[in-house]
């Protein structure tokens, strides 16, 4: 394939549609991670929570006919989603409990949760379906896609608004964008959001003005579990309706990078997630041009590190400049005639 054809395929609505599809499971956990990180309790178990929620959704929606015999067929997916979200919130709560009550180290707790999710999902998958690799034998449900009517006939807009094959983006993708807006409003326009940020930045100061930092952190971790669960549910119930062992493939960790690359705010994280998604989508397209996909996949992590370096250099420069200005002020004040006492 020639460069022209590849460039054409990149600067196309279909590419943007792919990026949105690939970035959704990064945006959702990144929002969750953002909330907990801003509250001062970094949640590195996003990966494990996504995995656990993905598994729970598939199992519950697959066994719903047996477990909830009276329920209508369309509800199976939503039952699965509800169960997945509850599992995610429970895992967030567990992390909070172990860290805040039993004083475990937050990193090690998150690590334990990742290992637990990895083991428990395969273990239970084998118990429920007899298969250790995937739930291919189980007929689980899919979450619906939202198709925007009437636009499919418009050439570019149709693909842009309704995805590559015109059936619409999954409800989770819409939810992801809505979530970014909601969290943005929450963090910067609502008192509770200010409390959260205060708890993360200066816990002692926050505590002294009466903010219950323990409760805030509990809520932050439960909320991060909620968001990460949404991301996991999208993986197993969004376009596919299957769970495979370790299907999250490191997305929970990439979400952490997304948070830092996005400078720890919702819109930044959204853009960073789209960048990572674009790199993934780019990788497959460039692969046809004999540029190995691995090189393209290396770009976002490298960009993240570069961004962190630049951010820290600038921060240090700013601090030094402020310190110098303060020093000059002090000296200027010292050479001025002393006030008579």
């Amino acid at each position, binding site marked *: 394939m020639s460069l022209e054809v590849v460039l054409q395929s990149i600067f196309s609505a279909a590419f943007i549609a792919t990026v949105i599809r690939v970035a959704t499971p990064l945006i959702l956990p990144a929002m969750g991670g953002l909330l907990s990180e801003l509250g001062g309790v970094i949640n590195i178990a996003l990966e494990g929570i996504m995995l656990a929620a993905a598994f729970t959704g598939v199992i519950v929606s697959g066994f719903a006919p047996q477990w909830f015999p009276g329920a209508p067929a369309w509800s199976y997916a939503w039952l699965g989603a509800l169960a997945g979200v509850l599992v995610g919130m429970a895992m967030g709560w567990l992390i909070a409990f172990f860290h805040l009550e039993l*004083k475990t180290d937050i990193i090690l707790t998150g690590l334990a949760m990742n290992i637990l999710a990895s*083991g428990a999902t395969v*273990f239970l998958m*084998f118990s429920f379906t007899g298969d250790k690799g995937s739930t291919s034998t189980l007929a689980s449900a899919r979450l619906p896609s939202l198709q925007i009517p009437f636009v499919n006939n418009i050439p570019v807009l149709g693909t842009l608004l309704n995805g590559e094959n015109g059936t619409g983006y999954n409800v989770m993708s819409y939810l992801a964008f809505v979530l970014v807006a909601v969290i943005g409003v929450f963090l910067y326009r609502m008192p509770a959001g200010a409390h959260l940020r205060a708890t993360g930045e200066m816990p002692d100061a926050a505590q002294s003005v009466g903010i219950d930092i323990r409760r805030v952190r509990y809520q932050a971790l439960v909320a991060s579990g909620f968001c990460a669960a949404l991301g996991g549910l999208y993986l197993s119930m969004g376009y596919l309706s299957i769970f495979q062992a370790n299907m999250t493939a490191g997305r929970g960790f990439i979400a952490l990078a997304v948070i*830092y690359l996005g400078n720890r705010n919702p819109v930044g994280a959204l853009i960073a997630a789209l960048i990572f998604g674009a790199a993934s989508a780019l990788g497959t397209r460039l692969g046809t041009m004999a540029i190995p996909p691995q090189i393209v996949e290396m770009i976002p*992590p*490298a960009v993240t590190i570069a961004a962190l370096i630049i951010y820290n250099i600038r921060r240090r420069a700013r601090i030094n400049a402020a310190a110098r200005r303060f020093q000059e002020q002090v000296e200027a004040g010292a050479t001025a005639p002393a006030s008579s006492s």
Partner: protein
Amino acid sequence: MRGMARFIEPVRIIAVVLIALAIGFVITALVSKEPVQAYTALLTGPLPRISFENGFEIKNINRFGNWLEESTTLILLGLAVSIVFRARQFSLGAEGQMLLGALMTAIIALKLSLPFPAHMLLALATAMMIGFLWGLVPGLLKAYLSVDEIVSTLMLNVIALQLFDLLLFNWLRDPAAGFVGTAPFPTSAVLPLLIPGTRVSLMTVLMLIAVVVVWFLMARTPFGFELKMLGANRKFAEYGGINTKRVIALSMAASGILAGLAGAHLSMGLLKRLTINLSPGLGFEGIVVALLARNDPRWVLLAGLFYGYLRTGAQIMERSSDVTREVVLIIQAIIILLITAERLFPFVQEWVQALRGRREMAVEGG
């Protein structure tokens, strides 16, 4: 009282391990039709069976070998993690350093032609060197630019994996193999076997040497002291005159050397080639080993042996019963959680007291 305190810690760890194993048994019993048989396989599988039927004979030596092989990798990784964790640097880069170490040995083994000891030694040396460099990068970033090491090492892990896949697919791949992997390494680049019937190799001896070296480094050298001080309190260490930047960078680099060696063990000792999916998260399991050992190299040896035993037992359990080996991961997670729970015992005490208080009130009231 101080002697008592030192005694309590190992007891606490053993208690936690027993609790975790017990919970694991309960979980096994819930899903298995033959839990006792399964758990027996888990707990006794890796031991060799010594029989006297036809004279002195050791059966199932390969299972015992599996135990030692797994433990060797885990102990090397545990040593790597213990160095950085002792300095309270949360470098999670062992996974990437290990992969690049293995990759380096493959390049040396397959692209160069040298006679026996030189070939193998060169491969080992380059594996350690690349691990050193891949650990030095986040170390310098943290020391001089304050870049958070959790994110940088996670990102470097991703880059390392992509580099590994890239070179494997495009340069080192053996078209004759039926799967994605390299050709087998020439015997001049393979670690010599120690126990016939197993894959236990020279690396196990190197591992033991590494334990002694790391112990000596941490307990008897100024660098070890600086590590400990940095881990206790960075500002205080700086006040005491320690160049914390240098220690941070060197601690991550030293950790990388050991992780690179672990990668060499996988490629030169166990598989004798390179394949995709070389490591299913072994780097993170090294963290568990270091945690169990409280970052002390001597305990890393024991913790690694214990942990390798569990993993081998789980594989045997899976082959001989209806329980999957992932139950060991669940036990692992419980161990981590309970061990790092500093307030676990006081919490349980308070809970018990609250129960007793409520019971007493009920008795008084009734």
